Each structure stands twice: as C-alpha cells, then as structure tokens.
C-alpha cells in the first residue's frame, strides 16, 4: 500500500483510539453515576504532570503509572466524598461543583509548575515499519494499549460479578442496596476508577503533547462531544462517538486546519443535541 496513505490511516486510528481512552473515565462516571465530571480533563492533566514529575526525578517513564493511580485515586476518594456524594441526583449542582474543582486543580497546577509548557521525552523513540510505512513506535504501542484498556474493561464488565453489581445499581439503587450491594462503596469505587482512568490517559499522552495547566479543557470538550454523538450505549456508543469525533476532527484538520476541524466537530455535536438528543446509541 501507499506509505502516505498508511500513515494517514494510522493517524486517524491513533486519534480515535486515544480519544476512546480519554473519554472512557468520563463515560464510566457519567454512565454509571449520572455525574458529569467536568474536572475529568484536569485528571488527565494531573496524569501528564505525574509523567513530567517522574522524568524530572530521573525515574523510568512507567513509574508514572503507579504515581498517577496514587494521586488521582486519593484525589478521587476525597472529591467523591466532599463534592459528588452529597450531590447525587442533583446533576446541575455536580456540574457546578466539578467545574469549580477543575478551576481549583488548574490554579494549583499553575501555582506549582507555572504557566509554561512542559515536555516529557518519548519513551520508545524511533519508528517501526508497518505495511511499508514508518510510524512512531510509541504511537503504535499507544494504539495497542488503548485497545487493550477499552476491550479489557468491556470484557471485565460483562463477565465479572462486580460488573453485574454495577449494572444492578444503575438500574435500581434501592433494590440493589436491599439485596446487600453496598451502593455507597460501589459508587465511590466507580468514581475513583474513572478519575484514575483519566490520569492514565494523561500519562499516555504526556510524551506527545505540551503539558500545561489548561490542557484539560480540550479533552473534556472532545469527550463531551463523543458522549453527545455516541450516547450512553456502552461500548457501541463510545466506539461510534470516538470514531465520528476523532475521525472527522483528524481528517478535517489534516485537509484544512485545526480551527476547521474543531468547528466541524462542534457543529456535529450541536446538530446531534438538536436532532438526536440521546445520541446514536441509548440504553433502554
């Protein structure tokens, strides 16, 4: 095949799969708890700063993974207890609270690290040949890891007992509680799981993007577009949403420029809100 075509296709695949991982934590929290965590992008930012921190302290890149899980996990526990749990069933107030949280996290990051861009070196520099094209190895690994994370989560959710408990809780919290499921613990774990996923996405992306306090904004908006387009239909929604938003944005950006790509996906999201408010896939 034509190497340029292969590279372009891989670029689109890369956009879509990484977008799916970026959205995953937000979608898990929104789908299961009904909480729109606007600070999700800031957890991604924290993950990226964790990667920067490990590099600055001459630790191996992978050390950022446990560090991020620690930081985002602890933060998730506190945030769930203080801001989210008192506000379940009040979606607008959770929106406000998590928006306030996103402000706070950004300001803290700026206070600690300043406004300037930070960079993390790409851990697997160099490129690999694939169907005649040379493609950066790290990106190929990211694509594989993203597919593994999303697929693994889905299989776990379908197969495991915890997955069944979560489904039960989503359908009927009172009934779930009355058959002995600890709804409080399950909700907390779900939220913390979501924030850790955000952090991990941040670690993955850190070597490829400039790290700065405002970086989360872009991710929260793209994730939101994915959810508007995909709806809450589990993996199908996530896949379709990421596919449409990630695909369209990377193609339009490549053909025209970034502003055009961004405008197009924004318009798509508005059209969906208007004409198909529940997205492509809804859960009955």
């Amino acid at each position, binding site marked *: 095949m034509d190497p340029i075509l292969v590279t372009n296709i891989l670029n689109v695949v890369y956009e879509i799969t990484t977008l799916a991982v970026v959205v995953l934590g937000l979608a898990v929290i929104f789908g299961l708890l009904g909480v729109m965590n606007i600070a999700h992008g800031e957890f991604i930012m924290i993950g990226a700063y964790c990667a920067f921190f490990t590099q600055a302290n001459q630790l191996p890149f992978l050390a950022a993974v446990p560090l991020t899980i620690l930081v985002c996990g602890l933060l998730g526990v506190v945030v769930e207890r203080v801001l989210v749990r008192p506000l379940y069933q009040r*979606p607008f107030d959770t929106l*406000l609270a998590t928006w306030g949280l996103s*402000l*706070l996290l950004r300001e803290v990051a700026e*206070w600690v690290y300043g406004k300037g861009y930070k960079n993390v070196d790409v851990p697997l520099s160099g490129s690999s040949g694939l169907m005649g094209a040379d493609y950066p190895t790290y990106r190929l690994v990211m694509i594989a890891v993203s597919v593994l994370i999303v697929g693994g989560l889905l299989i776990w959710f379908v197969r495991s007992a915890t997955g069944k408990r979560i489904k039960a809780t989503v359908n009927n919290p009172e009934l779930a509680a009355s058959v002995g499921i600890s709804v409080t613990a399950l909700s907390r774990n779900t939220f913390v799981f979501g924030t850790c996923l955000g952090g991990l996405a941040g670690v993955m992306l850190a070597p490829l993007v400039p790290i700065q306090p405002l970086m989360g904004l*872009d991710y*929260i*908006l793209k994730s939101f577009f994915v959810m508007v387009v995909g709806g809450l239909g589990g993996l199908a929604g996530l896949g379709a949403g990421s596919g449409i938003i990630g695909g369209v944005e990377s193609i339009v950006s490549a053909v025209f420029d970034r502003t055009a790509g961004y405008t197009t996906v924004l318009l798509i999201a508005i059209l969906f809100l208007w004409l198909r408010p529940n997205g492509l896939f809804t859960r009955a």
Partner: protein
Amino acid sequence: MASLLAHSLVLFAALAALPQVVGDFWAYTLALYFLYAIATLGIGLTWGQAGFLPLGQAMFVGLGAYLSGFALIHFKDSWLLVLFIPAAAIVPGLLAFAIGLLVFRGRTRSGPFFALITLAMTLLAFQIANSWNSVTGGFNGLKNIPGLPGIDGFSEFYYVSAAALGLAVLGVAWLLRAPLGVLWQAIAQNERRVAFFGFRVNEMKAVVFGLSGLLAGIAGALYAPQQNLVTPELCGFLLSADLVIWAAVGGRRTLYGPVIGAVLIGTLTSELRDQISYWEVVLAGLFIVVVLYLPQGLVGFVEPPLRRLFRRRKESSLPVEEKPRTHDRVTLEVDRLSAAAGDVRILQELGFGFERPGVYCLIGPNGAGKTSSFNVITGELTATGGQVRFQNEDVTGEPADRLTRRGIGRKFQIPSIFPDHTVGENLRIALWGSRARPLDLLKHSLLRWRSPILDELEKRFPFLAEHAKPARDLSHGQRQILELAMVLCLEPRLLLLDEPSAGLSPAETREVIDTIRWATERLGASTIVIEHDMAFVRELADHVFVLHQGSLLAEGDVESIRTNAEVQAVYVGGTK
C-alpha cells in the same frame, strides 16, 4: 415605579461621586471593571434567575469588542459610529439568542449540555480570533483603537462606563420586577410546570440568553475604546470563567451581587495576583464553597434577597375577565394509542373518549399506564401509534405549551409549584399563562391581576388569599391544593388531574372533591382524574375507565364497574 426612580437617583449619585473619593487612577481601573460588571450582570440573569449556566460568555464580550474596534478604526470621527457602536453590542445579543434557540430546542432539561456547548464555543471564538490574522490581527490583536469621539482621556471615560453600568443595572432591575422576571425564576424552579402553564419555555430561555449576550456585547463595545486594544484573550476561556466566579462570589441570585462581585473581586485580583502567588487557588476554593452553600453570595450577608423587595409591594388588584369559551362542548378521543420505553410496551392500542362534560375517573392497578396515558396525551411521551383528538383536532405529540393554550390543564402527581415564589406569584403565573401575550409580560400591572375564578377559589381555600406568603412554607396538602388552584386559574376545558387527593387529610379530600365538581361545572369542562382511592371515585365519578396493562379493560358508571367480573379479577391479589 417610585421606588425604582429613587433607586436610580441613589445609584447614579453614588457612581458620579466615586472618582472624587478614590482618585483618577482608581477611576480608570474601575471603568474597566464596571464594563466587566455589565457582562457579569448577564450571568446573573441566565444563571441566577433562569437557572442555566453559560460557561463561554466571553465570546460575546470579545465579539462586541472586535466589532466596535473595527468600527472605531475604520470610521473614526464619522457620524456612522452612532449606528455602529450600538450594533457592536446588539450583534452579540442576536447571536446569543440564535444559539439559545438552537440548543434549547433539542432538550428541555439541557443544563450541563448548554454549559459545555457554550464553553466549546468560547474556545472556538478564541481560536478564530487568534488565527484569523488578516481580520483580527491574530495574537497581537487590534491595536491603536481610537477612543470614543468627544470623550477625552481616562477620567472622562469613567463616566461613560459608569452611566452604562447604571443603565444596565436599572434595566435588569426593571425586568426582574416585571412578570417576565417572575417567570424566569419560575423556569429555574420547575421548567416543566411553566411549560404546562402555556409558556414557550425554550424561547423564553433563548430570550434570557440573548439579553445576557447583549449585556456582554455592551461591555465589549465599550471595552475597545476604553482599552484601545482588543486581544483574543477577551473572547477566551479565562474571562468566561472569571465572569462566572464574580457572579457566584458576589451573589448570583441578587441584582447587585454580580456587579459587586465583578468590581470587588476583579479589582482585588488585579491587585493581589502578583503579590500572593496562591491567590487564584484561594479564589477557586471560595467559588466551590459559595456555589454549594451560599447561593446569595457576599451580597446575601448584606442585602436581603431581591425577592423580599417584591413583598414590600402594596397589594392592589386589577380584575381581568373570564376567558371566552370557543367551544360549547369538550370532546376528547384517544384512538388506539400505543407507547413504549425500550422493550416495555407501556400503552397498547389504548382507546377511550367522551363528548359529554363531566368527571371521568381513570383507575387501574399500578403500572396499568394511567400516568403514562397523561404523558402521551400531553406530548411528553412519544406515541408509537394512534391518535389523540381534542375538540375534533389531531393534537398527537403537540408540546405542552400549545396544548395548554388549546385549553388543557394538567396537575401532576407530585405537587409542582414554585416554592421560591409567593403564593400570589404562583397564582398569577397561572393567570398570565392563559391570557398574557408575550409582550404583556413586560407590564408590571400584570402583577396585580385577579380573576373571578381566583376570587371564588380564595373563598374556598382562605390560605390562597395570603398572597405574600412564600410557597415553600405551605404544607403538603396546601401545595396540592395550590397546584390545583393554579391549574383552575388557567380556565381549562379539559382538566387532567393525577391523584389530586394524594397525601391529603380527610377534610382536605372532602374540599378537593367539592372543588373538582364545582370547577368542572363552573368552567364547562371535562375532567379526567387518576385515582386509587375508591371512596373518592364513588363520590366523584360520572363515568369510570379501567386500565389494565396499557389497554382499556372496562368502562361504565361506578356501579357497573364494581360488579364487573373482569375488573374484580384484575384487582384481586391485593394490588391497590
């Protein structure tokens, strides 16, 4: 109106005296933050009053500033500026209105979606401003913008800025005291109920958003000549966030909160940002606390909430006549109506109807589809098949506001009133719903409306005459009765009442039965009551429809239903 006049005199006197007190340097800084305060007032309108939060308000400030900047650069000293500067403020308002129409149309309860869409738009606005070098000057922005013709120097501009702020505050104060303001607050409390009083909620929200865009546009249009420079940051995310923080900390639900927040927090921040490195962390923390626990913000400590100002108003009354009746008879035909949620079939070819006036009871076990049939009739649940005909016209799937204007009044199962409003305001919202044209909502005289039906209701239920009492202080039973009274004030021809006696005392139930009978005759209406209490049904029903598993099982008078073997079979097993 006299109080508003006194109000404005004090306000303008204070604004005019300020430079003498604080000196020229501060007057220059204040002039800028006064402009931001105008934009923050808009956040107060949308978020504090109507209950939806725009996270991207700066795009309208930026748009106004760029437009006004172009006009000042290209038409310096031309008389055309008289047209162009106001246009620079109006265009953002129109844009906001259009965006509101577009976004609110799709979803009624669109809170988080609206916020995120506006956030996305402001980032887009920033990108466009930043990258469209040939027009916006790109990263460096529009430079050397001339000042307003005839306004010399910084100190004179202070008065322009102060006058604009004063006028904006007065305009907003006037709107908030008008029926329109009462309705905006009602939308924040219970959108669905407002729609069922016949108001086009989505369009009203778009109007609020349009006004907030106009205020932001005014701020922007004056920013350009004040700062002589417009950069992309002005439409960016950070200013959008600041506007929201200022409104919250100052007090989003109050008139002066947003103004004080913008001026106080804004100037404090510009002073302290460089001295205290964690100042903005503190501010973000403060925002979270205020948003969750102090909706009245700082002003809440000093000034009583705006609504208390309403209550000082002397009650006088302005009688309005009863609505003319357009039809002699009320006919409803529900024809093979089906509806589903996922795989669950809720209604299966449900059919019933009537031509004679009277009280019809809809009974059936839990899950028979009683409330769902109301939801389908009123267009809240989409019919997958069949038709609803009211007065011989197909009304299937029509939205709530249009059905209400056709003469259908619905009372919900859970009492739905506006707890933050007074009893009088609650009742008046219903009166306006049936009679006021959109522009009437600006007339303060509507606050004094009363109708013959309302008079009669107040005789039956004396607590309804306590107009100044906040509705949140009512008991559960009184709330049920208030909502019933509100629906009757619409003077509907078809009344849909969902368990109107739920949670009432026996005495209250008695009165409600009497009232439903009386109202049905008085209004020449037909009434459908969903009810579980068979004693209630025996007393009230002229005719009974029995629903079972989404279809009509039986109909007839109370006696024939009681002896119907099929109905007995359905009810055996203890389903109430």
